[in-house]
């Protein structure tokens, strides 16, 4: 046993406590600096509490196109549908129809692959679909009337989106018609689609296009055809 430095028992206990306290403090400061992150499901509920909304049941989580994390979500309450963008701290409230399926846009961009390229896409989701549905489509017409790069543009396109079932929701993405053409149509489509989600969620109801939502059973027979518009309750910013 060497005669080394002798430590006072009292003092090393205090130092021990001090170390743990400092470690806890540093962890807390890190947590605070990161914006008090919580586990994902708790994050959505917290967003609702902060806005004094009723807690919803999350039915869909989708990867956001920009960050690559699961940061878009959809939740339902009795009367409303909540859509979330966790990254941007956005929560949008939509009316939930009593007697028919409800279609809502997701408040952020997603991605899809076409060959070797990936594209940012706006997407929609439907809840309260008929249980026997095996396929779904959304038909929606987009128009743009204005000027792009000094050229006047008068553009209108009808999109038919194929639905993908994810849990209790049906998920639809806007696949581009004119990708890679270099044409004016491509520019117009690009401009419109790139800002579509913003338009659908940030601008007043008058601006929102109407759509036709249809469900089919496994034989291809129609289970219901619904023409409607997006019913925004509110958001704020």
């Amino acid at each position, binding site marked *: 046993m060497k005669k080394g430095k002798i*430590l006072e028992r009292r003092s090393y206990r205090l130092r021990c406590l001090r*170390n743990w306290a400092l470690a806890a403090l540093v962890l807390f400061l890190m947590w605070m600096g990161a914006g008090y992150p919580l586990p994902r499901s708790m994050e959505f509920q917290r967003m609702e509490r902060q806005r004094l909304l009723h807690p919803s049941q999350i039915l869909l989580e989708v990867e956001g196109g920009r960050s690559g994390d699961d940061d878009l979500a959809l939740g339902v309450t009795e009367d409303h549908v909540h859509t979330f963008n966790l990254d941007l701290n956005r929560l949008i409230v939509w009316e939930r129809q009593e007697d028919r399926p409800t279609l809502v846009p997701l408040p952020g961009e997603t991605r899809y692959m076409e060959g070797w390229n990936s594209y940012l896409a706006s997407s929609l989701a439907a809840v309260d679909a008929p249980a026997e549905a095996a396929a779904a489509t959304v038909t929606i017409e987009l128009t743009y009337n204005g000027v792009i790069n000094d050229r006047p543009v008068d553009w209108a396109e009808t999109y038919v989106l194929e639905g993908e079932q994810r849990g209790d929701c049906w998920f639809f993405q806007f696949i581009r018609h004119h990708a890679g053409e270099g044409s004016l149509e491509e520019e117009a489509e690009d401009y419109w689609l790139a800002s579509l989600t913003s338009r659908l969620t940030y601008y*007043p109801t008058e601006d929102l296009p109407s759509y036709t939502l249809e469900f089919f059973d496994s034989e291809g027979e129609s289970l219901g055809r619904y023409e409607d518009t997006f019913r925004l309750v509110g958001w704020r910013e």
Partner: protein
Amino acid sequence: MRRTYWWLYAATKKIRFSMDRERVWQELEGHIQERMEAGEERGLSRDEAEKAAVAAMGDPEALAEELGRLHAPYWGWLWRVSQWALGLVLVWSLLAGAWPRALEDLWGYLEGVSEVELPPVVETSRVEYEEGKFYETTSRLVRAWQDLELGEAGGYRWSVPVAYLRCHTQSEDAPADVPDYNTLTIYLAAESCRFWERWEAGGTLFTVTDNTGYAYPDWEETYTPRRGSIGASDYIAYSFGPYTGYETCFSATYRVPDFFSAEGVLEITSVPHPEALEWLEVTVGGERLRIDLRGGEVQ
């Protein structure tokens, strides 16, 4: 000194934490040595004195048992682990780049926010509405309130730190679509001990009514976008309709006045009959908060 060494070894072997063991070893060793010195003074030889001193110390096994139980290693390991824990956590925080954000936040909380100042009692501003054409708006602070407690709703305690009513009168040469109007500005604060989920003022939906039964429409209902193009660029403009559209607008001036509360600003353009205004009722999350607006006249 082998006898001493073996005795000390046996007596301290059950003390598991090395620092404690070292300390007790030293203490007991000193004791034995002093006994030895006393023995040598009495005339014993070195070796005999050592033998006597060690014998006087008693049975090392029994002592070892007691000392081992007493100097439990919990504290020892706790201390060692605490050093590692602190080190790791500090390194992690540096790698994660946590310090700039954390220090900024901390500074923000410590510094606090400046007090809201009431606008001046009378203020005149000049507005150019067309090239070379001006008109004047005179804004008068008519009523002001401070520190109103509103009660609890949605898990937060609500209050109005400051609120005021201003009347804006236009000069005679003002264009026809700019009428006299008033603005009611209410700072709304929500407090809660849950500092990790402060009120999100920018994201809350609410409705506002007053004592005359009037329900203030949300700005969304009066918000008209106009799309068009000027020359080579296209634009989207937003206008709040004519000023006689009594809009409620909750601006996103979102402040964190202290660690436990968040503030937003409620702006109402044109209360229909300001002289008859007694209270405002704000509904958030299905619960109602009443803002008592009696009195408050400004000289």
